[in-house]
């Protein structure tokens, strides 16, 4: 058993390290996410149409059916984060873990409410409790902003040569989002401190699914009646609180497969064995009350947002390229904020001020720190739930995510009578171009048909407080067609110098 535990420990440590590094420095460690995210249950469910995602989902479910919730202690970033919190707080926490009641009905109710609501088009409740997104929110809201700012402030003092510290990119800060993340982190820490992995067996929707399957696992941990001396060491070691020594019972449906119980036992009384009967589990199984709670939750979760949120459409925002429509994006995005920390030009920002419950915590584009780079399609490639649908790099160049509006009365060419041209200079398609104006001046002219809404013009416009050129959202993301360029009148090499 000790070997199994050590393997679990190593696998979990590797996965947690990869997740943390990827979230803190996506530029260097981002590849770790592309390896790990496809093995997240949420990816399997949301991207089911992909063969790879369906395969991953089946693999996770089969593993659970065979050996229990191995997933929870090796692949789940939030489960691993809880283990880390447990380890860090143990030196202050002298109280051992204790048996927890199963909370089957509560868990079923929460799961059904969140899923029902997501099906009804309001995914926020699911997004706030789903472990991958909760982990993402915590790291994108608290730790990434902190580390990036430390890197950024130290790098110029040390050296201006290209170096790793200086390559850290600071993302647009959203106070609201960071407060939510801090709240989640605090809540999680208190829960872990008081009752170990109680989140996993009360709130977590992935836990709810795996818990239901683990009830029927072929191989499971159980207490050997003859060998057990009632010393309760295992009970005190169990983070999930699923061992009740008084009853000599181990509820494997709630076991998160950390194997700490087995390694704590001095008499090898906890063994991994082929399940004999399901009868001994009856005390913990999902009963009629849980089933009723699930039904009520599903109905409530589906109907409540339908009635309460009718007519509260979010104000239009410029969405990441691949979001297609606001409807699709807001109904699918689980707010993991992977796109936020990955965006190399730092234009994807979680909503600073949520305008509607539907857009709560969802990212949108903000051109303060940069523009949506024409050659970049990273966010569409990494979104684990395809809220940002994959767009090939060549197509992304001409993907229209917004449309330009030029406000001549604010422009310095008009107000100051000076040449500027910053907007046209940055425009990748010349949807904004400079045309002759009076007094040998050049003034911007826009052609919305070939505008891709990348925000380059808005980003660079020097006029404050209100910029003279801004980008508006579009209802549906489309593709522009660039006109065929005319050949230059004379592109041959001149015979002589023109001076």
């Amino acid at each position, binding site marked *: 058993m000790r070997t199994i535990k050590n393997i679990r420990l190593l696998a979990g440590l590797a996965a947690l390290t990869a997740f943390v590094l990827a979230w803190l420095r996506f530029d260097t460690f981002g590849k770790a996410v592309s390896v790990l995210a496809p093995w997240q249950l949420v990816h399997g469910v949301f991207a089911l149409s992909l063969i790879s995602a369906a395969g991953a989902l089946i693999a996770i479910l089969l593993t659970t059916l065979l050996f229990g919730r191995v997933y929870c202690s090796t692949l789940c970033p939030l489960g691993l984060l809880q283990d880390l919190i447990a380890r860090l707080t143990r030196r202050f926490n002298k109280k051992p873990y204790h048996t927890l009641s199963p909370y089957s009905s509560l868990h079923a109710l929460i799961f059904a409410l969140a899923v029902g609501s997501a099906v009804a088009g309001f995914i926020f409740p699911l997004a706030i409790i789903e472990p991958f997104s909760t982990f993402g929110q915590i790291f994108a809201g608290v730790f990434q902003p902190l580390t990036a700012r430390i890197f950024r402030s130290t790098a*110029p003092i040390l*050296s201006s*040569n290209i170096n790793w510290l200086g390559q850290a990119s600071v993302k647009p800060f959203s106070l609201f989002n960071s407060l939510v993340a801090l709240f989640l982190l605090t809540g999680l820490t208190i829960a872990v401190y008081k009752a170990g992995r109680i989140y996993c067996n009360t709130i977590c929707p992935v836990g709810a699914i795996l818990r239901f399957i683990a009830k029927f696992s072929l191989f499971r941990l159980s207490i050997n009646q003859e060998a057990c001396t009632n010393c309760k060491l295992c009970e005190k070691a169990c983070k999930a609180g699923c061992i009740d020594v008084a009853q000599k019972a181990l509820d494997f449906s709630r076991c998160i497969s950390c194997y700490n119980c087995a390694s704590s036992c001095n008499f090898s009384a906890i063994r991994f064995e082929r399940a004999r009967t399901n009868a001994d589990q009856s005390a913990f199984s999902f009963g009629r009350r849980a089933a009723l709670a699930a039904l009520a939750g599903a109905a409530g979760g589906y109907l409540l947002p339908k009635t309460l949120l009718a007519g509260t459409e979010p104000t239009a925002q410029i969405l990441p390229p691949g979001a297609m429509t606001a409807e699709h994006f807001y109904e699918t995005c689980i707010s993991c904020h992977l796109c936020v920390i990955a965006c190399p030009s730092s234009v994807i920002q979680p909503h600073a001020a949520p305008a509607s419950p539907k857009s709560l915590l969802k990212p949108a584009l903000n051109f303060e720190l940069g523009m949506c780079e024409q050659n970049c399609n990273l966010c569409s490639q990494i979104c684990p739930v395809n809220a940002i649908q994959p767009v090939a790099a060549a197509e992304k160049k001409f993907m229209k995510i917004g449309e330009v509006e030029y406000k001549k009365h604010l422009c310095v060419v008009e107000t100051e009578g000076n040449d500027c041209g910053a907007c*046209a200079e940055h425009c990748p398609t010349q949807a904004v171009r400079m045309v002759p104006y009076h007094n040998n001046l050049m003034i911007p002219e826009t052609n919305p048909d070939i505008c891709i809404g990348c925000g380059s013009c808005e980003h*660079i416009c020097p006029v404050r407080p209100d910029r003279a050129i801004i980008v508006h959202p579009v209802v549906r993301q489309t593709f522009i067609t*660039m006109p065929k360029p005319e050949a230059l009148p004379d592109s041959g*090499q001149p015979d002589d*110098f*023109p001076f």
Partner: protein
Amino acid sequence: MDRRQFIALASSLAAAYNFKLPYRAVAEEVKLSGSGAAGTGFPDLVAVMGGTPVEMLDRALAAAGGLERFVKTGQKVLVKPNIGWDKTPEEGANTTPALVKHLIELCFKAGAKEVNVFDNTCNNWQACYSNSQIEKAVKDAGGTMLMAHEEGYYTELALPRGVALKKVMIHKAWLESDVIINLPILKHHGGARMTAAMKNLMGVVWDRRFYHRTDLHQCIADFTTIEKKPTLNIIDAYNVMMRNGPRGTSIADIATKKMLLLSTDMVAIDTAAARILEAKPEEIAYIAKAAAHNSGIADLEKLKIERITI
């Protein structure tokens, strides 16, 4: 750990991180035509036509008396190409990487201690550095790419003679270099009409929006009043973006002119460059404004121009 060990450890860590103490640069202004003991007889402006960028640079430098006139043994050199855009070399938005590489190699041959390269890019800086292929060219030649994407790399400098631009946040490397070689690519520019030598120097400044908001032409001209000027200006006019600049929409905007200009006079070289761009120098306001600052001579009639055709 005793004191010696600590100092050894700290300095090796600093060395591993490329830590550098501020450097007091010794700048010397050399006039291309030559003056005093160095003797005269060199031209004010060298124009080459017909070869590859590398060939043309060699011929231009030979006519200018060799790079050794400008780069001395043990000096720190800053080469400032245009790396403003996330574009490939074929798209003509950034300086030709082969030219950057060759110039850096020549600097080292002339005895340079180190050669640094940077640009305050318009697109994402890492994408610009890598897709322009200038980062690779610099590394291959033994030079160093610097970061320029944070305000922390810049320092404030007063421009007492400036009309609109009275102070500027300038990259520290400018002040810490003995020799500065301005290496722009010639392009059409929607706002400034043309980007060549003087406009390229906006890439060593932190706040570009101030230029655009205040008076673009005057600010570009004001920057040339800076005490420490580029030692040498070399304009890459091999592939010239004739319209839709400075970013360009397709390679249909590019004309192959196969030219290269070299001068110590920013105003003169930009005036000649405007002619290559088929623009009227008198319509590019910053040229006249810089000439009014006595930063150079805009009247090509008054200059000794050496024209070389390969």
